[in-house]
């Protein structure tokens, strides 16, 4: 009887040791995960969440469209053409493609046929991105264009009614306001748009740089004498 107890003693004491080890590492792991989640929630509450685990403020688009080539005036784009020359930016105005931004609520994304107006001629024939575009535009076929499923980067909640038209009009009339903002670019075609969208002309892949939260909207509305009534935006 006594020998049995002596036998079982070292065994019973070794199992709790293992348990303590497992519990300690497990607890540390859980604490670390909770810390990461808390950091994510807190940063997401204040501004933009930490860009991890698919919460990046940018997406891979179906066509890797470079705003740098189209909108920037800078010659230092880091893009080299097939013949070795350094490509300069076209410096297109934002409204060249986003045509409804000065008149309507949505900025609008150009139809694929609009892109093909230039790109059926311009650009290398074997460029993989342009091949996707030309296939979608169906330049040689008879099926008609198929829209490109662009992914939206700047998205506001459904209960917010943002209309571009009055904002563009006000900022165009008051360029000083643009200069005072965090991401405002003073010069170039994107001067007004950069107030909220940052320097898109310098982005290889469009990214949301401003939090675009209600606090930011209200601050700007208050500073510029715009209505801060709830139904100015929520209806």
């Amino acid at each position, binding site marked *: 009887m006594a020998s049995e107890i002596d036998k079982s003693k070292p065994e019973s004491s070794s199992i709790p040791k293992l348990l303590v080890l497992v519990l300690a590492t497990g607890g540390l792991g859980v604490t670390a995960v909770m810390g990461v989640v808390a950091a994510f929630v807190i940063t997401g509450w204040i501004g933009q969440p930490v860009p991890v685990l698919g919460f990046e403020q940018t997406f891979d688009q179906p066509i890797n469209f470079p705003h740098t080539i189209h909108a920037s005036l800078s010659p230092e784009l880091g893009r080299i053409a097939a013949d070795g020359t350094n490509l300069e930016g076209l410096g297109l105005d934002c409204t060249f493609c986003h045509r409804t931004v000065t008149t309507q609520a949505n900025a609008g994304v150009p139809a694929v046929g609009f892109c093909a107006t230039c790109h059926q001629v311009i650009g290398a024939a074997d460029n993989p991105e342009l091949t996707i575009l030309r296939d979608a535009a169906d330049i040689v076929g008879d099926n008609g264009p198929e829209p490109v499923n662009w992914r939206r980067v700047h998205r506001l909640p459904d209960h917010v009614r943002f209309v571009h038209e009055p904002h563009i009009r006000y900022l165009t009339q008051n360029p000083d306001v643009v200069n005072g903002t965090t991401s405002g670019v003073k010069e170039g075609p994107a001067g007004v748009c950069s107030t909220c969208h940052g320097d898109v002309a310098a982005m290889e892949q469009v990214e949301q740089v401003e939090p675009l939260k209600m606090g930011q909207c209200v601050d700007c509305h208050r500073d510029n004498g715009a209505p801060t009534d709830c139904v100015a935006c*929520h209806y």
Partner: protein
Amino acid sequence: MTTASFGSHNWGMVVDVDKCIGCQACVIACQAENNIPLNTQDRVERARTISWIRVERYWEGDFPDTKARFIPIMCQHCENAPCEPVCPVFATYHNAEGLNVQVYNRCVGTRYCANGCPYIVRFFNYWEPVWPESLRNHLNPDVTVRSRGIMEKCSFCVHRIRRATRTARSEGREIADGEIQTACTSACPTSALNFGNFNDPNSKVSKMREDQRHYTLLDQFGTDPNVIYLAKVDPDKKVSVGEAASHG
């Protein structure tokens, strides 16, 4: 110079009950305009329907001289609204343009406001709104689809007010009288419903409410509504103005 500046209007409605024929066109127009879920049979049976405007029917006179009378009732946008002070989260308030505003993203669904409203024009979303697949693309993109658990009510088609204000401002002019039509007023075949600015003494609604037939619903509560009714005049029956004002 600021044109069509915010807060320079006092929106209101004048309802000429004499012209109302009870056709329910306003009800249909409102349901379609404001993304209101369908009032299916099971919701009617549970008395949980949502209709921002309704046409109440009542009978006048004894058989066989019975006459059907109609009165459209929507949110009265009271200047002294009983629904506003009871809201714990300020989801409903009176704005500078005379609108009783419901802010959907603030609402937490206590339903105090609906209990406070004597006109029974506030509605609670007991379920997520669903539409048949064929109506999916018919939703109005200018109006928020209200989710489960929040109150909703007539907004005086505030999205149309916003749109007209924007247009007027971009064109550098004031909003013209009659430029803004709510869904119900534009659908009304007899012009019984009229929408306009009470701050402008020359507007159609300002002139209409000077009519001696004018009264407001449930006047005794002192809610001071922005919806003015013009009483029914019965040619066969001598009804004094004071008597007509008593229905409601």
